[in-house]
């Protein structure tokens, strides 16, 4: 499907031509006036024809989107094929729902398209959610900018935008990550249980040492947190929460899911409507991110999450603070 419309410059040109025509009709016939009038008319007419011809035979598609984090620029890949002749000034535009309405976003552009080309562009940040892509267009206002010609190209149906993951230390062992996570959650008033004490191991950070217990035992011991010892990290998400803590919990889950993907670990999520393992040996992390993109909080009277291991990490955090946890920190 091809669309054509005048640009602002094109509208100005039409108005200008109309004024010229009025002047032409008002004054006695003059060969040079007619010549210049004909020139301007031919310029406009040929401008339209050249613009249409520039996109004739253009093909392309927008590549599938991997799940993208919210509130960050989105990398978009697209492929353009000029057809038999090189094309000039070609750009790709997506029409998508951004949660508040329909948005037109320019993905990328190329000045001269000589061969089949794969390019990358950037879309503006989108909020968390599944954003439907209404259409994708290749367009050009070549050569003079008086008209804009657009041709539709195939595009994926949606962009999955998952919560922006909390920043975690890359490459750190799970214990440290959980410890860090635990500290952050405790600092924010989370309800996190230390599961016990164990001997200090090579790689443990000095700040994790429980000095009082170490003094009592005569050897270094560290606090162990819920879920640290398990092979699969279990997380329980109770969706009966307010929006803000709920979103924060989703960010934590996104961070843990991406980390599990990176390190080849497994993450078991228990929540209302889901009780699945993701990652190594389970469903793809992509599905977790998809679920996170769509998840919405529930009312307090809704059923609780399914029962899970008591050692699971529980989200979202609340303001209750266990005395042991307080002492441990």
């Amino acid at each position, binding site marked *: 499907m091809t669309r054509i419309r005048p640009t*602002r*410059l094109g509208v*100005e*040109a039409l108005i*200008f031509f109309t004024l*010229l025509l009025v002047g032409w*009709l*008002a*004054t*006695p*016939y*003059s*060969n*040079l*006036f*007619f*010549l*210049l009038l*004909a*020139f*301007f*008319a*031919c*310029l406009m007419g*040929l401008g339209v024809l*050249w613009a249409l011809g520039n996109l004739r035979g253009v093909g392309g598609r927008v*590549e599938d989107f991997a799940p993208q984090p919210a509130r960050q620029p989105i990398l978009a*890949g697209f*492929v353009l094929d000029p057809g038999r002749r090189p094309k*000039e*000034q070609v*750009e790709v535009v997506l029409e998508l729902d951004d949660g508040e309405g329909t948005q037109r976003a320019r993905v990328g*552009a*190329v*000045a*001269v398209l*000589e*061969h*089949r*080309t*794969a390019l*990358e562009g950037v879309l503006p940040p989108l909020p968390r959610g599944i954003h439907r892509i209404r259409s994708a267009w290749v367009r050009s*206002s*070549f*050569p*003079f*900018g008086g008209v804009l010609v657009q041709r539709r190209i195939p595009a994926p149906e949606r962009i999955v935008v998952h919560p922006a993951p909390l920043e975690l230390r890359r490459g750190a062992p799970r214990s440290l990550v959980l410890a860090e996570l635990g500290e952050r959650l405790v600092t924010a008033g989370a309800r996190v249980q230390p599961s016990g004490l164990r001997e200090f191991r090579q790689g443990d950070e000095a700040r994790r040492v429980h000095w009082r217990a170490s003094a009592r035992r005569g050897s270094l011991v560290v606090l162990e947190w819920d879920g640290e010892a398990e092979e699969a990290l279990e997380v329980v998400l109770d969706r009966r929460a307010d929006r803000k803590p709920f979103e924060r919990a989703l960010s934590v889950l996104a961070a843990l899911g991406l980390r599990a993907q990176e390190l080849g670990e497994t993450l078991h999520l228990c929540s209302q409507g889901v009780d699945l393992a993701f990652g190594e040996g389970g469903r793809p992390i992509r599905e977790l991110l998809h679920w996170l993109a769509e998840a919405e909080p529930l009312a307090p009277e809704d059923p609780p999450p399914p029962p899970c291991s008591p050692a699971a990490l529980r989200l979202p955090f609340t303001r209750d603070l266990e005395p042991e946890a307080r002492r441990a920190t």
Partner: protein
Amino acid sequence: MSLLLRIFLLDLVLLDLVFVQVTGQAPTRLLLPLYALTLASPFLVRFQDRLLYRAAWTLGLFLVFGTLVYDLGRQGLAPLLQDGLLLAAWCQVQVLNQIGPKQRPDLLFFNSFLIPLVTSFFSQDLAFIAVFALYVPVLLISLQLWNLERGGLPLAGRKVAWAIRGALRRSTVLLLLTLAVFLYWPRDFGRRGWVGEHFEELLGSGAKSVGFGDELRLGDTDLATLSLEVVLRARLLEGRPEDLPVYWTGNTFVDYRDHGWQAIRRGRLLDPLEQRFADEQAMSWKRLDARSWQRGPAEDCDGPRFRITFATARWNQCKLFLPAGPCALAILPPATPDTVVPLPDGTVRYTYAPGDLQEGRGLRYELRTRGMAPEPAGLQAAPTVATGPFLTLRRDELPLELRRIAHDVAGSLPPRSDQHFVVEALRAHLAASYEYLHPTQPGRAASLADFVAGRGGGHCEYFATTLALMLRELGIPCRLSSGYVPREWDPASRTLTIRKRDAHSWVEVLDPIAGWMIVDPSPASEQPGVTGDARAEGPWQSLIGEARRLWEGLASFDAEGRARAIRSLEKLPGLFLAALTRNPLWLALPLAVAVAALTVLLHRRRVRAAAAEPAVARYLETLRRLGIERPDERTPRELLASYREGALDAASLGRLARATELHERDRYAGGRT
């Protein structure tokens, strides 16, 4: 804004200033600062954000606009277009110097087109079309570059040459299409428009053009333009081109008063002596039948026969143009005979009735003139008293210098010299002593007295008036005539074309034996002659002459020209087939051109494909070394994305990523940067 775009916009504005300059309407002293400000714009742009800079430009605009308003109040509409041109030029330079994030160049583009449009009313020289031919590609390139920059895609490297070549191709196509529309689009060439007769007032004195009129007034120093508008075409039906009349008279002037001459308008000469002379000389017209008249003896009307057509229908009163001497005149249908009124001085006036107007075409008449004998047979002069009106002189209106010079020149000749010696001496003196300046040139004398005193040059009217008055001072009867001296003869169609710019004035001296003798006092180098004959010219002059001829044909295009163009187009296939039938080898030429064009196209495609091959070869080699199969339909980037999910170790993944990047750069970005 990129430097490249700024340079092209600068060129556009420079060309606009040249357009204004070729009209001669704006003094060079006012245009020079505009040229300087235009050339300095790449430097001045750094001050764009400063308040003082913007205020200075605005102040300049107000000054120019104020000048326009002041001139309007003082001189009326006369200087409107001249001052308007200067204002438009200033606006162009101002926009150029203020283009930036807050000022788009859209206004500059539109203004740049408006300036040549307005200047076309003032100048129809070859210079106009030469500047326009430069203007078109610069405009197209500027539009393209601006469009690219607006989309965030400035050009660099070889893409610039690509864009410029493309713009030049498009310019050619555009100009050819414009020419085709101009030649073949149907239109009313005689349309007066809603403004009608007031248009010339609106244009002001600067757009006056040289032409024929019923009055001759000296002292107008305003610049006029040379109009290429065709007045009439005279097709030679019988006779030799060598016998073509040079001088075609429209009016004769007898009485010089109030610094000017006035032509006869009514059917009877005001001066009874002049009327008597005309009767005695039988120079009045004799009606032969409903549509025909004759002037002079019938046996003398045996020379060339013409069919004359006025180029456009003008419904106000006008004159026919006739060669000197006896002639027979026949008015052709559909004009009614009542529209034609032969006058006693030998001229003819006509007036259209509205029903007589032909679309785009004026009155047609046939003329048979006297053959050009080496010694033209004249009429016996009447006694001196009948020449009285041709000796009329108001000495109080004559500059003393004129009278003194006349007597000095006559006194330098041997006593009792024949009249024609005196006439020739005066003519030679004028031609040698006074500067000829065309109405399009500045520096002309403000009055006859200034001209005679050498305080300024003058055109043919000054020379003719001065000679006529000098001759009368010396008692030699004469009159002043005005009309046209054509310069264009087309041997193919045997047509003499008379244009407005061919208007001329000369003196006719009454010789006691030969009758009226034409004496042209304008200097010989400025005297027009019939062109179209083969003359010895250098190749450059021939080229310019040919270009000028083509341009003049375009600028004076009319209904007949359009009809000829259509007939030529219709004949083209037939001519082509006929040529092929006569000589089938001629088919080889267009075939050869087609084959050559196809070969060039295919070669370019191969070159383009070949340029991509080394980049592809390197990439494929990398894949082979990494043990990756050659991708089928996936692009290199798609292939890389598919391996990012863990099928390759980090080092191999890095090599693949690098190879992909290099491939894209080599293939699509014109090489490594």
